[in-house]
């Protein structure tokens, strides 16, 4: 049990004990005092009885009343005398009797008391004095054997007064003491607790100020002690946490400084926004590109500063940013996006947006990265113009040569000799070759800049293949080669694929042409394979096959194998590259299926079935490019501006 409870119990016990002792002591004292009084009374009674005896008359029937003299009786002042005759009536009293009623009362009372008394001996008794209306302590003494009684009484209060007084003093003292203790002790105890608490408070105040290094202690045990312990644990934890936080903050600052340095040096514009679209970061490159070099941009909604739009018509294009912010998806706008910056400056850009996520994958903003591609666009435009012009310029002279040669051959310039005819025919072939080369070269470049328009539509590959076969079978026949065609192709049983019919034909022309060119004897097989999403056309020959070392670069531009081709038959080495490129752009592919040196090769190209994922992707891409191209056409320089004026 706690000390203070013990103390309290001890205190209570002490008080109780004290009170008990006191009451016992006083009781005894009382009794002793009473006894003394009775004895004194007895003495007085005895002597008074002795004095009275001789005064009795008539054979003790009456008393010589006038002869009574209190002085002779030697009655002490504080005592009263009562004299009773043998009949029990009060004959004489030293007290002043007010009226007869009192007298009667006393008689009655005495009579009732008398009944209980042994009238022959001394005895003590207590009664209520009707005359003075006060309780009395009295002693009764018989007058000899006369039957007369003498009672000497004293006021009880008078007799015991001092004791009462003392008792009252002592009790008051005790009460006061108890009160004082009851007030003081808790008060002290309170102060004791408050002092401890105050000490703890002082220590915790230090923590508030930031001093976490001093341990919190308390000398008391019990609740305050445990509070102190807890506070100390808390202090230690706080110190640990704060140290960690400070460390992390410093690290973050270091990283942040590093990031800032990186951001400042990135050439691309970086703009970070919060979930409300307000700018929280805008690096130097962004400022330069948009033109807002010195303006305040942090905290402003990005739509108020920069606008992304479609190149064609400048309609707003912020969906890619919304997608990143709302759906958490990374998006890219590589083509046909412009940025409208300060002073309505329109800048072609490549832009992308990505969400900023917390560790728990909550989106707290987005990062928009954009790059000024005006330079690239310019180059593209120049390239585009170059192709168009080159196309025109390179081919026109040749067609003119062809035109005149043809006219001469037709006889428009008169009769020509056999030799002349022969030479002119050679010239025609050379010109054809030249045209083919120019076409191929320009095609490659134009394909690469993705400017060739494909007209994607559902086609029956079998139809296109058959058209080509019709034209090229004679060539094969001339060499003595047999062409076998898959039954399904002959029966138009292939599922429809999405492709540009002209390009599909050209791809097949390329493969079949190569097969015919390089196979000296044997056969050519045209097969088909139908898969879930695509149709594959296979052209197999019994030619020399392709050696291992050429296979890797077979479909590359100007591949080594292409060089071999060129030497052998005047090809350009570009056909396979173009075929593969075109196939891929239409959502398919072209490849060497198999080859065995000395036995032959099988080439294959595939096209996506209408509605398949590849078909959709290819179509979407080309639609977008066509849209852009159409718009570009409207705003660009008209053709022919580079030409020399006509000589008329």
């Amino acid at each position, binding site marked *: 049990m706690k000390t203070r409870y013990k103390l309290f119990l001890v205190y209570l016990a002490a008080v109780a004990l004290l009170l008990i002792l006191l009451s016992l002591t006083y009781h005894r004292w009382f009794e002793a005092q009473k006894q003394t009084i009775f004895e004194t009374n007895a003495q007085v009674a005895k002597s008074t009885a002795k004095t009275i005896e001789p005064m009795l008359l008539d054979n003790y029937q009456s008393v010589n009343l006038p002869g009574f003299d209190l002085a002779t009786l030697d009655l002490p002042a504080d005592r009263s005398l009562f004299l009773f005759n043998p009949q029990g009536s009060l004959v004489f009293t030293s007290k002043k009797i007010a009226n007869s009623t009192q007298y009667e009362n006393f008689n009655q009372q005495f009579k009732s008391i008398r009944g209980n008394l042994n009238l022959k001996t001394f005895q003590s008794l207590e009664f209520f004095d009707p005359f003075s209306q006060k309780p009395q302590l009295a002693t009764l003494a018989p007058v000899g054997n006369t039957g007369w009684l003498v009672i000497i009484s004293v006021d009880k209060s008078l007799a015991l007064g001092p004791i009462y007084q003392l008792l009252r003093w002592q009790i008051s003292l005790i009460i006061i003491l108890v009160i004082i203790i009851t007030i003081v002790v808790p008060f002290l105890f309170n102060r004791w607790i408050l002092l401890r608490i105050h000490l703890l408070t002082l220590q915790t105040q230090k923590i508030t100020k930031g001093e976490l290094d001093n341990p919190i202690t308390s000398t008391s045990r019990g609740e305050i002690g445990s509070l102190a312990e807890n506070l100390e644990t808390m202090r230690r934890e706080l110190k640990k946490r704060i140290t960690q936080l400070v460390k992390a903050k410093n690290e973050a600052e270091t990283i942040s400084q590093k990031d800032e340095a990186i951001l400042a040096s990135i050439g691309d514009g970086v703009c970070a926004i919060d979930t409300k679209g307000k700018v929280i970061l805008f690096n130097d490159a962004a400022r330069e590109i948009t033109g807002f070099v010195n303006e305040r941009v942090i905290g402003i909604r990005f739509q108020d500063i920069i606008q992304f739009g479609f190149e064609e018509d400048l309609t707003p294009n912020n969906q890619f940013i919304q997608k990143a912010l709302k759906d958490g998806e990374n998006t890219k706008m590589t083509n046909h996006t412009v940025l409208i910056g300060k002073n309505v400056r329109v800048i072609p850009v490549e832009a992308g947006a990505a969400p900023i996520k917390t560790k728990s994958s909550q989106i707290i903003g987005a990062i928009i990265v954009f790059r000024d591609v005006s330079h690239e666009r310019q180059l593209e435009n120049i390239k585009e113009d170059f192709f*168009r012009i080159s*196309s*025109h310029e390179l*081919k*026109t*002279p*040749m*067609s*003119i040569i*062809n*035109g*005149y*040669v*043809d*006219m001469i051959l*037709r006889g*428009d310039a008169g009769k020509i000799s056999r030799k002349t005819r022969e030479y002119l025919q050679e010239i025609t072939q050379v010109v054809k070759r030249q*045209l083919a080369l120019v076409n191929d070269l320009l095609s490659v470049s134009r394909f690469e800049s993705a400017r*060739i*328009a494909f*007209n994607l539509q559902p086609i029956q590959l079998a139809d296109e293949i058959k058209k080509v076969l019709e034209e090229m079978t004679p060539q094969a026949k001339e060499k003595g080669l047999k062409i076998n065609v898959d039954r399904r192709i002959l029966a138009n049983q292939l599922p429809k694929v999405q492709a*540009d*019919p*002209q390009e599909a034909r050209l791809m097949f022309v390329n493969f079949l042409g190569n097969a015919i060119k390089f196979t000296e004897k044997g056969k050519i097989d045209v097969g088909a394979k139908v898969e879930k999403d695509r149709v594959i056309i296979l052209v197999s020959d019994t030619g020399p096959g392709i050696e291992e070392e050429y296979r890797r670069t077979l479909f590359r531009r100007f591949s080594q194998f292409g060089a071999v081709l060129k030497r052998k038959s005047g090809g350009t080495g570009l056909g396979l590259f173009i075929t593969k490129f075109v196939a891929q752009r239409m959502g398919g592919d072209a490849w060497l299926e198999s080859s065995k040196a000395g036995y032959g090769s099988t080439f294959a190209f595939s096209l996506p079935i209408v509605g398949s994922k590849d078909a959709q992707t290819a179509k979407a891409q080309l639609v977008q490019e066509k849209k852009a191209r159409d718009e570009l056409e409207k705003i660009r320089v*008209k*053709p*022919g*501006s580079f*030409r020399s004026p*006509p*000589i*008329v």
Partner: protein
Amino acid sequence: MRILLVEDDAMVSKLYQSKFDLERFETIIASNGQEALDKLPSNPDLILLDLMMPVMDGFEFLEKVKKDPKYAKIPVIVLSILGQEADIKKAQKLGAIDYFVKEEVTPGQVVERIRQHFPQKP
């Protein structure tokens, strides 16, 4: 037969003019779409139209001439470098009755086709 030859390349027009002379066609030459429009009142029987020209290209001229009720009926054959199917289709949509890709044909072939279209014209 009167042919309006719309072609900006002088050497090409010379070539075709030579051929047409041999065939005894009358040739009127315009070196761009605008000139061609101006030369329309000469009432040609056929317009041989190049597409890539300065000032006004072939497509624009074709659109304009077909809108003009006076000259809309004149048949137009396109003779151009542009060989993409899209261009061919566009020209046909605008009203051309035939299309030649320059490097694929010779003047002789063009004349043959013209004779096919106009068997009765000398």
